[in-house]
Every structure is written in C-alpha cells, then in structure tokens.
C-alpha cells in the first residue's frame, strides 16, 4: 500500500517536472523572440510585449504555481537586458499571474468571456504598472502618457492575436495513420 502511494507520488512529480520544463522552454522561445523579432514591429517607438500573452496563456492553461515561477524567472531574465527598470517585468508578470488565477476561478476553463476579461485586465495592469514605474523613475510627462495609451491599445490587439494563435496551435494534433 505504502509502496503504491510512493510510486504515484513519483509519477506526479515527474509530470510536474516535465510540465515546468516545457513551460520554461516555451518561455525562453518567447523571450528570445521578444528581444530579437518583436522590436521590428514597433509602432511609434512602442514595442508590443510578446511575453504578456504568453504569461496569460500559461497561467490560464497550465498549473498556476509552475507557470508563475517560470513567468517570474523569464521576467527577471528580460529585465537583465533592460537594467534601468530591473525587476519591473518580473513584478508585472507575477501580479498578472495572480490576477488571472483569481479571475479564472469562477469561470469554466474554456470560457471565452473569462479569457477576454483576463486579457483585458492583464493588459490594463501591465500598462498601469509600467506607467507608474516609469513615471516614478523618470518623471511623468505627456510623451510617457501617450506612449502608455498607444502601448495599451497595441498590446491589447497583439495579446488577443497571440493568445488565440497559441490556443489554436495547442489544439492541433498530428495523426499518423497506417492504412
């Protein structure tokens, strides 16, 4: 009896490990894309965040604690490349992770309304915390506020697009049949 319980526990840990590893690999891919490709689609010097829809999707679809740990790590790694605001993205991603976890609980897992609300709230929080942090660090001015407004709109569109592409891809299945 005790032996069976021990085996179950080991299997569950393996699943958790591989899930965390998979989330981490996904996060790294998104991180490198964010650093090298996304600046190419900047509009009025506002670069959208590819990591934001990834965090939303990961927290929504995967285990909360694994997702939020990886999101924190990826946020910190992203911040290393922008030392002026070191810690900002780690803070935002963890905050958004907690918010998404709170938002999704009353809804069903595939609720489209809940997903839309989660994406909207996440983008709003991202824009507000960024605005607040950058304003406190560098001072508030019209340029910062207008960039924040453009960033919010652009990120919102970008997040919806990336989120639904990820959801579509996650539902694809490769079927190999042998007739």
């Amino acid at each position, binding site marked *: 009896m005790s032996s069976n319980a021990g085996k179950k526990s080991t299997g569950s840990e393996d699943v958790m490990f591989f899930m965390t590893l998979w989330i981490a690999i996904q996060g790294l891919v998104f991180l490198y894309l964010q650093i090298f490709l996304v600046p190419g689609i900047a509009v009025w010097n506002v670069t959208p965040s590819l990591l934001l829809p990834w965090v939303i999707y990961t927290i929504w679809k995967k285990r909360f604690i694994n997702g939020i740990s990886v999101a924190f790590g990826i946020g910190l790694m992203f911040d290393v490349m922008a*030392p002026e605001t070191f810690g900002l993205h780690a803070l935002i991603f963890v905050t958004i992770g907690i918010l998404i976890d709170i938002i999704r609980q009353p809804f069903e897992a595939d609720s489209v309304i809940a997903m839309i609300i989660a994406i909207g709230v996440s983008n709003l929080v991202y824009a507000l915390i960024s605005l607040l942090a950058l304003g406190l660090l560098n001072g508030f001015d019209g340029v910062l506020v207008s960039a924040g407004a453009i960033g919010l709109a652009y990120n919102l569109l970008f997040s919806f697009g990336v989120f639904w592409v990820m959801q579509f891809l996650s539902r694809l299945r490769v079927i190999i049949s042998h007739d």
Partner: protein
Amino acid sequence: MLKRYLVPLVYILFAIVMLLGTGESRQRKAAWFGRTILIPYVGSVRSLQSAQSLKAEVMALQNEMTRYQLHNLELINRLKEYTQAQSVNFAMESTRFVLAELIGYSGAFHERNLIINKGKGSRINVNDPVISPHGIIGKIILVSDTYSVILPLNNPQFQLPVMDQATSVQGILQSDINGKLFMNMIRLSSQISVGDTIVTSNLSKLFPKGFPVGRIRRIQESRDNLFISAEITPFAQIENLEHVFVLERREEEYRQ
C-alpha cells in the same frame, strides 16, 4: 488562499526589492545577475545581438559597395562615350552630331533596323546620316519623341552613292538579302582594285563627302557584263554597335 499565493508574494517582494533604489543600484543588480546565474543567457543574447549588428553592418557595406560599383560602371560608360566621341576623326568641323545609344532592333534578321534612344527631343530628323567611330552606319527613317529608327547599310533597302577614295571611281552601295555589301554600277575598265578604301561620294545628298564605308574585298563583273561589282567589307560592325553618332545636317545643306 494565503498558502496558494505565498510563493508569488515572495516573488513580488523580491521584484520590488530589485526595482527599488537608484538607477545605478538597479544596474549593479542586473549586472550581478548577468555575471552569475544568468551568464549563459546574457552571453547568448549578447552574441546574437552582436551577430545581428554585424549582419546589419554587412548589409550596409554591401549597399555601399553596390552604389560604388554602379558609380564606377557609370564612369566607365562615360569614359567609353568620351573616347568614342574623341575617335570620330572625319570632317566633323562643320557638322554637329548627337551621341545615341542603341536600344533595340526591329524587323526580320536580314532586314532589321536599329533603334536608338534619341528622337525629336534631340533634334533628330528623318534622313539624318548615322555613323560610328569606324564608318557609316545608315540613315534615320523614323523619328518619334524619344527614339528613332535607323536603316542600316546592310539592309537591302539601303542605297548610297560611294566612291573609291584613291581614284574617285563612283558606284552605288547596296546590300543583298544576306547582308553582304556591294559597290555596284561601276563602269567597266574603271581603276579600282581589291583593298581600296570606299568612302561616301560627293554625289550623296545625305552624307558629307569622304566618310569611310569599307574596304574592297573582291571584284567581279556583273551578269550583264556592263558594270563591275565590288564586294565591300564595312568598317563598322553593325552587330557589335553600342553607340552611334547621328549627324545633324545644316539648314542650308537641307535646302540645297
């Protein structure tokens, strides 16, 4: 609830600690992370960024090189035009000319005409003579605003009074269907021999007298035994032309 969010709250506290302080202290913290636990990541990003900037630099240099190559080509072409214009050493003192580039052909292979990139805008008129640095080419038969058509001397429709440069023996320059040039209608017993230079005749209304046409390659009697016919090797190779000179006839010459 608290247990569920305990770890995220620790993360938040950690992130706030990282964010607090002056810009310099944040940079020091980021640098420490970059030097220690995140060194493989920072190293890979720096390498990729370096490769990206090098690629951009290579692209910019390639653009620059292409620009210089084009400029160089333009200078070579200008030099070619200049040297060709310099090499025109016929009696050009009283004749203005327009330098034109050959841009195409029209018509069937043995009766084809040449198209040049100058037209009415360059004061080119129908029947203007066309030459190259080596000899005559033909005459203008059609002029539009931006291009003109030349009837070359190897076209069977082209005819021109020519003469032997040494003895002034007169004849008519004509071409057969194969593009071979002949000086026809030479009177029997005329002083003409293989190797003589043939030039434009004083009887020509288009070309000024004395422009080189070609050299006599072979002499034969005509079928009716009334005239001599001389096969001519032209000085100008119509097939290898790049630039030509369209001579502008003077108004008084026109009227005459």
